[in-house]
């Protein structure tokens, strides 16, 4: 008997960064196939930077992704510094983290309000929400402007920061600017809390409920944060960052320019805000810790939609955290922006928590040039798991109106906050 297939496709998932589509093939007896097609062209970042001057390559890496260019820049710089055997001073480290948090605040605010919220409120675009949801749009703009301004002041601009260089910064803002930054962060805190309250009310679709392996960078000094040198897995295993290739194994799949990754070569896994909370919530402090504890039952590590709520909690956390880091730097004021770095030969691996999850940079340096480059982005790590969750959603809803199924499939993808363009240039050694 001839089978009839009904393909349901979203050619271009809207309101994400980059170009990707979902293809769901439905037969008479259910879902036949689910594919997340990543159709963004390849950019070969590793191949084009090998052999180039280290500092020029460091200017190019952030261009992998605009939504997390500061994350790329700072992770690349750390990998390069590790490779040449340089360790930045603590106050420089603190200010770099403030820059990184600027990216986190901007990216989370943008994702939650402009990309996620319209689905829940029944709009196709945030631009159409303006009249009825003026307050929410204003909060979104205020938070993203704050994050953008932090990146302007510390990174030179909100997209593709050049003011983070080997050894520190080209130039640092004045003490007054940092004090103003702290003041603006304090003013933003109630808005971050409002965001959290708003997202506690959104639905977490039970259709995609099931065990998920979470991976997150173990934060340095046991304080919830961005930088770390080991990866923790929700099954209790932990490994040093240098071993990432052993436990986060990549494979090329034919329907995508981006590779898929598997834990120990077998299981899909998730990374991102909910993974950070699942593995390291005990390292939170301040207002975010209180909110986490009072809403604990909402943080379901079995449901990818919880990632939205986890990002909202992180807005609160990182707003407070940035104020503390600014205090740390101010306590040592005046801070010398930059140290001389001797560019020796070597190899370094840096792992950080980008807004959407683990970002890995492995760089080799020889004679001042990049001799080896391997970059794996959170979206690339997440793709296999994301596809799995779209399948779960499709299996539950394949009889629904195609429009409804399409929206739900897109919502699953959006909950991961994927940067599709960044996932499309993964290296082979």
């Amino acid at each position, binding site marked *: 008997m001839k089978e009839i297939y009904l393909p349901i496709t979203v050619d271009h998932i809207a*309101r994400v960064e980059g170009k990707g589509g979902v293809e769901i093939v439905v037969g008479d007896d259910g879902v036949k196939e689910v594919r997340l097609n990543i159709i963004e062209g390849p*950019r*070969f970042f*590793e191949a084009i930077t090998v052999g180039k001057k280290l500092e*020029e390559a460091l200017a190019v890496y952030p261009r992998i992704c605009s939504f997390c260019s500061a994350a790329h820049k700072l992770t690349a710089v750390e990998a390069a510094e590790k490779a040449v055997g340089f360790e930045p001073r603590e106050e420089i480290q603190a200010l770099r983290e403030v820059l990184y948090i600027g990216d986190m605040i901007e990216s989370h605010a943008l994702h939650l309000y402009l990309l996620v919220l319209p689905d829940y409120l029944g709009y196709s675009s945030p631009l159409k929400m*303006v009249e009825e949801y003026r307050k929410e749009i204003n909060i979104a703009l205020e938070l993203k402007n704050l994050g953008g301004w932090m990146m302007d002041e510390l990174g030179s601009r909100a997209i593709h920061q050049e*003011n983070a*260089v080997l050894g520190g910064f080209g130039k640092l803002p004045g003490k007054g600017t940092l004090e103003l930054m702290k003041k603006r962060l304090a003013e933003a805190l109630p808005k971050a809390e409002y965001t959290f309250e708003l997202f506690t009310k959104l639905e977490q679709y039970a259709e995609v409920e099931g065990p998920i392996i979470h991976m997150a960078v173990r934060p340095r000094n046991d304080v919830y944060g961005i930088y770390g040198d080991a990866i923790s897995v929700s099954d209790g295993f932990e490994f040093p960052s240098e071993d990432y290739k052993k436990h986060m194994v990549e494979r090329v799949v034919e329907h995508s320019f981006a590779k898929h990754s598997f834990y120990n070569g077998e299981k899909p896994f998730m990374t991102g805000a909910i993974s950070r909370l699942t593995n390291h919530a005990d390292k939170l402090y301040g207002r975010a810790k209180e909110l986490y504890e009072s809403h604990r039952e909402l943080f379901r590590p079995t449901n990818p939609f919880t990632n939205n709520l986890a990002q909202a909690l992180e807005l609160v956390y990182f707003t407070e955290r940035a104020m503390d880091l600014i205090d740390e730097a101010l306590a040592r004021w005046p801070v010398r922006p930059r140290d001389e770095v001797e560019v020796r030969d070597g190899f370094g691996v840096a792992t950080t928590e980008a807004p959407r999850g683990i970002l890995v940079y492995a760089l080799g340096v020889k004679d001042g040039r990049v001799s080896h480059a391997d970059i794996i982005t959170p979206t690339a790590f997440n793709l296999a798991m994301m596809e799995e969750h779209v399948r779960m959603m499709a299996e539950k809803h394949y009889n629904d109106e195609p429009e409804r199924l399409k929206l739900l499939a897109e919502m699953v993808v959006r909950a991961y906050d994927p940067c599709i363009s960044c996932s499309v240039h993964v290296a082979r050694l």
Partner: protein
Amino acid sequence: MEKEKVRIGFYALTSCYGCQLQFAMMDEILQLIPRAEIVCWYMIERDSYEDEPVDIAFIEGSVSTEEEAELVKRIRENAKVVVAVGACATQGGVQSWEQEKSLEELWKAVYGDAKVKFQPKLAKPVDEYIKVDYRIYGCPPEKRDFLYALGTFLVGSWPEDIDYPVCVECRLKGNSCILIEKGEPCLGPLTRAGCDARCPGFGVACIGCRGAIDYDVAWFDSLARTFREKGLTKEEILQRMKIFNGHNPRLEEMVEKVFQGVEE
């Protein structure tokens, strides 16, 4: 009578999405909304249509797949004005930095023997495929680049190109010269202005993200002398210029001219 709305499309080829992000991040967009109809803008609008007629088409990204080469042709047919936005669309972007290796070599280095069902191409700027009416430069472009172009179009006029290098803005800001004082390979003298010398203002040498200036107004003679005095070679400057100018046919000639008569 209500004025007819301007139909706008924002299309992405292969890129980091930074130009669109910069555009989306402008609070001024909210003022534009009553006057414009967003026909296609996948990054923020789910009801987007790639094949509808528009007045202004903004294209971000470099053409890097067969599908994208087809897409730009359709956009051209549907648009009154085509604007190439950012370093990828105007110059091929950083993905065009490597000019020595073939597509096969690049593919092999990253994907090995694996194949996918799409057809990749070597990254190229949009005008290698279609006629482009106006270019907004930068990686990413400055917000004011968008405001200027859009504002000019909306009043029925045409924006002008910038014909002076970053150095002009850097001198006006009173920054100390990174090239002269630190000997770093600052590309300010050869790069199109418009960023208000953003990077040199932070003490970081210009990387040339707005592309090589189209006009012969760089200070060639004194520049050649300065590059030489600082020990920067023609090859070094050329390689650095290529980060954002992989497809610029004038590049070699321009750098050659800078170093004319300079013995290394």
